[in-house]
């Protein structure tokens, strides 16, 4: 299951979708909106996706993960729209026969999704807003 959604993500449902009866291990990564960034209070985040392409890129990432690890089940849900601190922005869940593979595959997927999927977030502070990672000078602000 690959889902890009404006609605609240049901973590339990993502986990259930990824779980297989023959799996012994499920690893789940949950990204949440932090209430602070660069020492400033985050009011909310705006997430935007190029949806058709995001689904296609994520599908390629899953295909590559499936070749490298024995995935018995997997599911990804990524939120878009307006998110407040504490809300879940992304959930990746994978199941494998043994636990090390579940960690490695899940980490590969979330790392690569963050690197390649066309999804963007803008942090909104009291005194302004910025698209994360867009400009080089932002690297020095953190």
């Amino acid at each position, binding site marked *: 299951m690959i889902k890009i959604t404006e609605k609240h993500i049901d973590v339990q449902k993502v986990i259930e979708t990824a779980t297989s009866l023959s799996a012994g291990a499920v690893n789940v990564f949950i*990204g949440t909106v932090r209430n602070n960034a660069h020492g400033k209070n985050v009011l909310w985040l705006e*997430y*935007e*996706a*190029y949806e*058709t*392409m*995001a689904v*296609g890129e994520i599908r390629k990432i899953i295909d590559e993960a499936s070749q490298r690890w024995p995935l018995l089940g997997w599911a990804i849900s*990524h939120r878009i729209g307006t998110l407040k601190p504490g809300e879940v*922005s*992304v959930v990746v869940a994978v199941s494998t026969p043994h636990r090390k593979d579940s960690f490695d595959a899940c980490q590969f997927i*979330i790392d690569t*999704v*963050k*690197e*390649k*999927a*066309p*999804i*963007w*977030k*803008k942090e909104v502070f009291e005194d302004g807003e910025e*698209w*994360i*990672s*867009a*400009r*080089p000078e932002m690297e020095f602000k953190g």
Partner: protein
Amino acid sequence: MMNKFKIKAFGITKDILGGKETIIEIKGKTVADLRFTLNERFPQLLGLRSLYIAVNSDYAEEGRILEDSDEIALIPPVSGG
């Protein structure tokens, strides 16, 4: 030879181009030609950490020839997750 393309813009490029979709008239018909015109019209694009151009939902190479029916999109540095 001038060619018109409709360009989708996301994230910070939506702010720079001033909208989700912009019609751009370019000389030539490759991705590189489009990039040249975009940088000329919207020099703020040069301040981005990277800018990819996607054609029909795939990252495109600079030499790719654009067709009228292509869906073309600007992909500034991604920051999902």
